């Protein structure tokens, strides 16, 4: 019984009991231990079932959009949830005072599908320490390198803890700079190869909107992509390009790199490679060292008199 | 910065004193003027006809040779500078002429190099303050009329040598040597070039020299053998020397003042810049 989880349960329980929050968002027991589910505890009893272990994968911040209407909500916040909340606050969609943040230092979430493939059988527990992950299965403990087990987004994570919290469950870990090797590798290809790469992936898109509905930056009351003038319901490759181009541009300079879009995509499209391209260019063109963290002024919400003409250099190399 | 030196025909013959004083002074100032191993006449006149590409072959060959040696080109004579620099610019900007010259000369030069004049190098690499420091015997009291002529300055968009109407580089150079530059109206007027041979004294050259004398100059300095010849033949008593001769004198080297139509040595002795004849 890990004491982080116990501490979380007691904090959530007391918050609910004192009426400080009307709801506490975290993770609760799912079908299998390796798949905890987003959990909305409304009383001490339900708070008692909160789960906090290396299997807690799905992003929680976006739920705040609907769950703070009834009253203040508590949330257990890893780095990605913290930035997601900051995004919703910056967009004036959620009041910061409506949320009680319990900050944690996250070491990365185990991807249940990867774990199943590695273990070859159901997995009951996991321990992430340093560069190795120990999986406990019916046939004993197996250990694997971290890079084989964790969710893609956690491997690239630069924000293990939220930037601010109302209470901390443990000592927060510092943030780092994001690297964009995936983007750089793609940039090295020629135009036709890059197009082939994106056409191959986007052709599988179902337009199921899982990515949009998972994204804390996609928090509009009415999405322009639901308007047939902008995007018809036809599902040709060109329509998929329009959907993903527009969405990537809409979250440009606003995406917090929580990676939930890519995790939610049922057909495995590397959506983060789209958002990271904007992040890299914002970093390089507008000298924003941490483009995925909400800025004082949004990169596309202001200009500077000596902005570069980014399309000039774009002519030869990207 | 290494340069390949293009002396030009006259500096090996008629204007050898120009060449010698330049080399000695350069060496004294730590500038390395390695002469191109093979070169021909620069063509003396930049062809104005757009299809006279054959005239560009010789200057192109000099440029390509310098490029081959991985260095820029430096020259002294205004004429050579005019032809080489304008050829270089044409090769860089006119793709068609570049291709033709490449195929004819079988060289692969497309205009990346620069053509410098010694004065420009003095100004940029040595700087005139640096030069003044190296001058052992300042030419104090010597009143010198700096004569630019045409080929250094015009056409301005090609030569980019100095302000075409109010140039100052020679004046600064002379001050660095301790001499006193004399401002005179016709310093950028033409010396008559080839026309001067026909009408003798009444020529443009005579006007230039008269204007310089009117300014109180002891002697005239130029960087172009043909101007130098015309000004000396203008039938006045004003001596005409090359700027490198004064440079050599100021650096304590031999100014090679012999062989001038108007002997400059009496003036220099009067200014106690040359030892009395022994």
């Amino acid at each position, binding site marked *: 019984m890990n004491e982080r989880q116990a501490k979380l349960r007691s904090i959530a329980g007391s918050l609910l009991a004192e009426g400080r929050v009307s709801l506490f968002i975290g993770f609760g027991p*799912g*079908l299998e231990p390796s*798949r905890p*589910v*987003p*959990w*909305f505890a409304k009383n001490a009893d339900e708070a008692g079932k909160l789960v906090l272990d290396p299997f807690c994968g*799905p992003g929680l911040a*976006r*739920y705040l959009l*609907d*769950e703070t209407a009834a009253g203040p909500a508590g949330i257990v916040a890893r780095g990605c949830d913290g930035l997601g909340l900051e995004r919703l606050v910056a967009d004036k969609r959620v009041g910061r005072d409506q949320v009680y943040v319990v900050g944690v230092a996250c070491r990365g979430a185990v991807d249940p*599908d990867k774990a*199943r493939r590695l273990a070859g059988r*159901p997995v009951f527990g996991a321990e992430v320490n340093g560069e190795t992950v120990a999986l406990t299965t019916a046939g004993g403990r197996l250990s694997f390198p971290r890079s084989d087990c964790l969710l893609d987004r956690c491997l690239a994570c630069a924000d293990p803890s939220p930037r601010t919290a109302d209470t901390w469950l443990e000592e927060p870990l510092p943030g780092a700079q994001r690297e964009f090797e995936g983007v750089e590798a793609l940039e090295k290809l020629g135009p036709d190869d890059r197009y082939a790469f994106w056409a*191959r*992936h986007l052709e*599988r898109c*179902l*337009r*199921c*909107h*899982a990515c*949009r*509905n*998972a994204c804390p930056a996609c928090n509009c009351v009415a999405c322009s992509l*639901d308007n*047939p003038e902008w995007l*018809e*319901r*036809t*599902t*040709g490759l060109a329509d998929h390009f329009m959907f993903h181009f527009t969405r990537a541009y809409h979250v440009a300079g606003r995406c917090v790199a929580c990676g*939930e879009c890519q*995790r*939610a995509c*049922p*057909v*495995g499209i590397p959506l983060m490679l789209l958002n990271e391209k904007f992040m890299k260019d914002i970093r390089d063109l507008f000298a924003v060292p941490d483009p995925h963290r909400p800025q004082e002024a949004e990169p596309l919400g202001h200009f500077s008199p000596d902005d570069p003409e980014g399309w000039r250099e774009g002519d030869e190399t990207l | 910065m290494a340069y390949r030196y293009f002396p030009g025909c006259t500096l090996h013959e008629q204007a050898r004193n120009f060449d010698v004083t330049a080399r000695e002074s350069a060496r004294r100032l730590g500038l390395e003027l390695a002469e191109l191993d093979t070169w021909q006449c620069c063509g003396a006149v930049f062809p104005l006809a757009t299809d006279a590409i054959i005239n560009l072959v010789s200057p192109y060959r000099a440029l390509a040779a310098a490029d081959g040696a991985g260095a820029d080109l430096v020259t002294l004579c205004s004429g050579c500078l005019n032809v080489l620099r304008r050829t270089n610019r044409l090769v860089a900007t006119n793709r068609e002429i570049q291709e033709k010259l490449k195929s004819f000369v079988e060289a692969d030069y497309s205009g990346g190099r620069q053509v410098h004049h010694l004065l420009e190098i003095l100004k940029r690499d040595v700087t005139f303050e640096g030069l003044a420091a190296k001058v052992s015997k300042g030419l104090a009291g010597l009143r010198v009329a700096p004569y630019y002529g045409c080929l250094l300055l015009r056409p301005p968009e090609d030569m980019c040598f100095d302000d075409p109407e109010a140039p100052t580089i020679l004046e600064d150079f002379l001050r660095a040597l301790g001499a006193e530059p004399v401002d005179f109206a016709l310093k950028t007027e033409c010396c008559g070039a080839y026309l001067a041979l026909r009408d003798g004294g009444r020529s443009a050259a005579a006007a230039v020299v008269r204007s310089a004398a009117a300014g109180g100059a002891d002697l005239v300095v130029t960087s172009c053998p043909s101007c130098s010849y015309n000004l000396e033949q203008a039938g006045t008593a004003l001596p005409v020397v090359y700027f490198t001769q004064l440079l050599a004198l100021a650096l304590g080297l031999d100014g090679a003042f012999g062989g001038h139509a108007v002997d400059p040595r009496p003036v220099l002795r009067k200014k106690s810049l040359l030892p009395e004849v022994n």
Partner: protein
Amino acid sequence: MKLMRAGALPRLLETLGRQAQVYAPATEDGLVLLRPWTGQAIATSYVNPVNSLKGLVYPQTEAVLEFTGGDENLSLREAPAPAPQVVFGGRPCDAAGLALIAQVLLEGTFVDELFRRRREATTVLTVACREPGPYCFCRAMGVSPADERGSDVMFYPADDGYLVEAVTARGEEALQAVAGLLAPAPDTGARDACRELRIPLAEKLTTDRLAARLEGFFEHPYWEQVARRCRSCGTCAYLCPTCYCTAIFDTSRGTRGRRLRGWDSCQFKDFLLMAGGHNPRPAKKQRVRNRFLHKLSYSPANHGAYGCVGCGRCVEKCPADLHMVAVLTDLGEVLP
């Protein structure tokens, strides 16, 4: 019952491919998908292709009719007849789903011509299951790993090939065309193995008399609580082999245009948004409840079979883990 050596599969598909477009499972970016077969390697070790059989018989976007001309000279044209196609590698649960859709769209008062034409142009070669997937629960939904409903030919994976058995006349016809590749089956071991295959996840679920027990469950607070984690996206509906809701819309380019039918999902916020702005199911609770009650209560009541075939796609892919097995497990505890 016939036997086909494993090596003969490509030749079978190639033969059938002479008059029809063949689809077969292929691996792309780590996913197995039913793809037009052009001779590439046929995937075999998979639970279910990500895109179901439904996608090939009831496509995500389909032209209903084409129109040209301005105000006066408007002319309409039927959408072109679908080309014959052969789909190999779908699982029995997908085929059963197809059968359910066929029941809804063809055996009701209105016959859906588009679906009928495309279904008749399709030969479904189903590969029965010898091993359950982690999320399979077909038996709980009354579907067996060797279910023949909706299939034209059953392929039972055997050690050295497949036991092949036609189910329908179209299946028979197809097998005639490839008779040369088939040998009499020595025994029916492979089929029986498929038929008796145990589905562990299904055994944990009690779904008998579920429809009856769901009576009067409409206002239970359970729906409010479980629906909180739903993100109202279309993943479950678009992967599901039995969801058949669609929307009709027009597109035009100058004076040419098409009327199209495309998939829709009852989980979308604006699924039921009507002209004038009224939306009978604005809240997540209503939309989530509708999905599960439709499949577990209304479908059995109207069509005699659950609206779910237990393929497990929604279990694996729902980003919020709010899927059929989760609900069935919860209902097991919550229902009387």
